[in-house]
């Protein structure tokens, strides 16, 4: 498995993501700078990490979504390469319109930083196949702009199509219908505000994020 982590100025979870990918796949990912116009040949998994790309200028993820490397990411996503966007990565994917909706300022206006329970809504996707349907998992969140918004028709459509991957089990940030993670229509792009890469080692306080990487990287026993 050849994985890649996209690094923007202001990314700060790129190393954590790299550790998770290497731990699970056994191979260090390529760290790809935002100015690159192409991904390494044969990249078959792309991660967009958390952080504050471009200082959250204009809107969270807005500048990163228009950076040169994103054109390559969008092309790869269109070819079916799995793309995982976590936190700021989710914001970038929404701004790039690879995923529906937008991430707005948290309803309580506070930065929320704690481990939260999530309900696995779709356990059939390539990212979530190692979880049970309806299972509750515990994953940390750390964000200011995680309040998922989409119009009612879009929400009805993505719910109807099983594209809500995760839902907050308790209110966290005001997200529409408690949505914490969303899949694209082909199911190969997942954006989520919680950080699975921060829950892969017992020293993290939990390992519920591990199965996401194991499923997505095809290393299930």
């Amino acid at each position, binding site marked *: 498995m050849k994985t890649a982590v996209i690094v923007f100025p202001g990314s700060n979870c790129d190393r954590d993501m790299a550790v998770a990918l290497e731990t699970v796949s056994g191979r260090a990912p390529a760290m790809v700078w935002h100015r690159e116009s192409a991904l390494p040949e044969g990249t078959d998994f792309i991660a967009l990490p958390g952080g504050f790309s471009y200082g959250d200028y204009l809107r969270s993820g807005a500048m990163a979504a228009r950076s040169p490397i994103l054109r390559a990411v969008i092309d790869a996503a269109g070819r079916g390469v799995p793309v995982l966007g976590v936190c700021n990565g989710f914001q970038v994917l929404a701004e790039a319109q690879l995923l529906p909706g*937008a991430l707005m300022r948290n309803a309580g206006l506070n930065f929320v930083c704690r481990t939260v329970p999530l309900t696995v809504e779709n356990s059939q996707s390539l990212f979530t196949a190692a979880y049970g349907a309806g299972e509750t998992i515990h994953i940390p969140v750390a964000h200011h702009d995680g309040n998922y*918004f*989409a119009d009612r028709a879009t929400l009805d459509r993505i719910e109807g199509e099983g594209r809500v991957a995760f839902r907050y089990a308790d209110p966290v940030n005001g997200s529409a219908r408690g949505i914490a993670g969303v899949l694209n229509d082909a199911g190969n792009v997942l954006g989520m505000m919680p950080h699975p890469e921060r829950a892969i080692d017992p020293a993290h306080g939990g390992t519920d994020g591990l199965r996401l990487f194991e499923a997505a990287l095809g290393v299930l026993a």
Partner: protein
Amino acid sequence: MKVNVYVTLKPGVLDPQGKAIHHALEGLGFAGVDDVRAGRFIEMEVADDVSDADLDAMCGKLLANTVIENYRIERA
């Protein structure tokens, strides 16, 4: 020439920042404020021959996120 772009949240999109500003105004003792919505104002200096279509595309592609925001362009 100068171009002003006003980016505002669409009606119906909850605006927690506007709400917080509203509460703060009330806390300062200002009565009679019914609602506050916060937006963004962008000032650009552009060549005179930049077309309306290009200005519109700049807003639609970058300056506003049309999932949640409306925009208004004003040639000053």
